[in-house]
């Protein structure tokens, strides 16, 4: 084989269905686990974070208003696209996390399977989280879950791909839109995931991906008045306290960070964390 010079990818953000560079023009060096240069990733600014919230809000009406069946189909399509890029993600995860090829491939397989698992929840979650309520009167009374709105997600720092999809999929399958801050040290699998999302019929703005300094991006997101919830998984303990305090200003729903085994059965916790229960009453009579 001749010494062909490979074509390197310019990693970019994913906001509103487009792939912009950071408005700041900044990048930072991303290395593999041994310190070798992999790429320059965008070093997103507070302004990028705010732009991402605008895009997520704009997408919320359409995405939350889509049928659950349609959302499930789109998420399943995403899994199909992931499967086709399995080798690429395995290589990126191996670099990012210093894993052997086999172990990285296992992470990617688990991530794809997890995406399929969550896709199937789209038209079932209302049946486990909702209820018909037998009130003491002549009323039809029904409780059903609804998405809470725009969710800011701090993706886990260590698990750059399995952990990433494990926090994105449950947030969006129920109709929320998300602004996701990728793992600070290992953002490349996340930025590549954006390419999959962009080709899966997922409406632009449903998932917005930012790379950069978690603390720098998390602060404006936690304080943003048009963000409804924050998933603090990727925040350290000290930062998490600051962010939860800031989130109180408009009473965001907060998912606190805790140790998670990403290979374990995730249960329904993350699906239910970003739902509101709406109860509708109507009189019955002739």
């Amino acid at each position, binding site marked *: 084989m001749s010494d062909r010079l490979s074509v390197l990818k310019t990693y970019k953000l994913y906001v509103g269905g487009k792939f912009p560079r950071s408005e700041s023009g900044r990048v930072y060096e991303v290395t593999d686990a041994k310190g070798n240069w992999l790429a320059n990733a965008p070093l997103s600014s507070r302004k990028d974070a705010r732009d991402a919230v605008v895009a997520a809000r704009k997408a919320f009406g359409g995405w939350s208003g889509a049928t659950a069946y349609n959302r499930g189909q789109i998420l399943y399509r995403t899994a199909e696209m992931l499967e086709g890029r399995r080798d690429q993600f395995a290589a990126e995860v191996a670099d990012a996390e210093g894993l052997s090829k086999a172990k990285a491939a296992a992470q990617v397989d688990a991530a794809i399977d997890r995406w399929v698992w969550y896709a199937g929840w789209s038209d079932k979650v209302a049946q486990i989280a909702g209820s018909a*309520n037998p*009130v003491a009167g002549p009323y039809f*009374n029904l409780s059903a879950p609804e998405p809470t709105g725009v969710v800011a997600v701090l993706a886990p720092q260590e698990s750059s791909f399995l952990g990433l999809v494990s926090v994105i999929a449950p947030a969006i399958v129920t109709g929320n839109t998300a602004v996701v801050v990728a793992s600070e040290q290992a953002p490349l699998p996340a930025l590549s995931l954006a390419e999959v999302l962009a080709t899966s019929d997922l409406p632009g703005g449903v998932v917005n991906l930012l790379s950069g300094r978690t603390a720098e991006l998390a602060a404006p997101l936690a304080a943003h008045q048009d963000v409804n919830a924050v998933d603090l998984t990727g925040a350290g303990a000290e930062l998490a*306290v600051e962010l939860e305090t800031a989130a*109180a200003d408009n009473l965001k729903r907060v998912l606190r960070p805790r140790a998670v085994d990403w290979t374990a059965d995730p249960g329904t916790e993350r699906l239910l964390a970003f739902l509101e*229960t*709406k109860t509708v009453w109507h009189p019955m009579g002739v």
Partner: protein
Amino acid sequence: MSSAFDYAPAPESRAVVDLAPAYGLFIDGEFTEGTGGDLRKTVSPATEEVLAEYTQGTADDVDRAVKAARTAFGKWSALPGAERAKYLFRIARIIQERSRELAVLETLDNGKPIRESRDADLPLVAAHFFYYAGWADKLGHAGFGPDPRPLGVAGQVIPWNFPLLMLAWKVAPALACGNTVVLKPAETTPLSALFFADICRQAGLPKGVVNIVTGDGSTGAALVAHPGIDKVAFTGSTEVGKAIARTVAGTDKKLTLELGGKAANIVFDDAPLDQAVEGIVNGIFFNQGHVCCAGSRLLVQESVQDELLDALKRRMATLRVGDPLDKNTDIGAINSAEQLARITELADAGEAEGAERWSPACELPGSGYWFAPTLFTGVTQAHRIAREEVFGPVLSVLTFRTPEEAVAKANNTPYGLSAGIWTEKGSRMLWMASKLRAGVIWSNTFNKFDPASPFGGYKESGFGREGGRHGLEAYLDV
């Protein structure tokens, strides 16, 4: 409005309530003096008469109560669910037996009409304990795993608008799930919680399972900040709710908040207007408008505005304002001088900002705290009376032309607790219900409550649900 027949006074006797001159704190199964030695007075808002003195709980008192609750937690949580259930069934039954006494007490301390405390508050209190009693031995079937565990000690802070009902909403699910509680009743309405302590005694509830620490906001702040509690449940203002969320940040305490609201009550031109008028009146004048889910913004479709407002004014003119103990009274006393001042200030701001104010002719008693039922027309979305929670008998009327405009106006608020829809068209009702960002939607009805029905808000109206299966989650480690 003149009427052919006037109502004769029909006061409920207060002899059924036996008040002590002063009350201590209920800690570890008995009433004890507070460590600070300070007593506060609780007054009847209808007469300003001092009803009793009660104890200003200190941080040390809170600490004692939390320790008692922690000690009690081990045995209480280890009891078979069926045994915990039987204690709650006992409590429900005793509340039913003593409901007349408790209704009169609630009306005395709160100022709400006896018709409401008797027919709404007390039946709902007993029903709430019955409902959650039945869950105590069925938690494994509630959808939170096969053996969901309680959290531990719950710190609960409740408001003055439905003192005993809010206690029931907090205590019943907490105990059913196996938690123990320290409850801080509101500063202006401590008495029914203190009577509840006696009900716990009659029911033979193990000591320390329920602790009642009275006091002002500083007592509540000490409770939610106490490192020994595992759960904070608060019902009250959004401002205090945010402060509590900041206090709890970075801890392992689970938090649920039921906060303010600015509900839209939306009337379409095809609505049954007479029923809508009843719903509007119930929505804003029930409990003097001291209701977080009150329908305080009336959104009426332009084409029926005149007809609806004429009917509404006619109906408002028949509302009887006065002695809360009178069984014919519709609107009682404002709960406190402080709340009256807030309502007055906001209503004055409504006039100053250009809205048109109207109240029916009604004579208000000379002593006590009173505010006539009030209607504002010509209100815009920018007016303070359209944005801020008045928490009083003040209705702001806005108009709309299309369903889309109604949705946009209804959702144009940081709150999201409840909303009302009045229309005969089913598809439109369901479309509206899906678009409104609020936790409770009343269609062709308003202000209906039931222990089986989850209640709670979107956005800045708080998070978590009370009532129904959903209400268990707040008190389970899930």
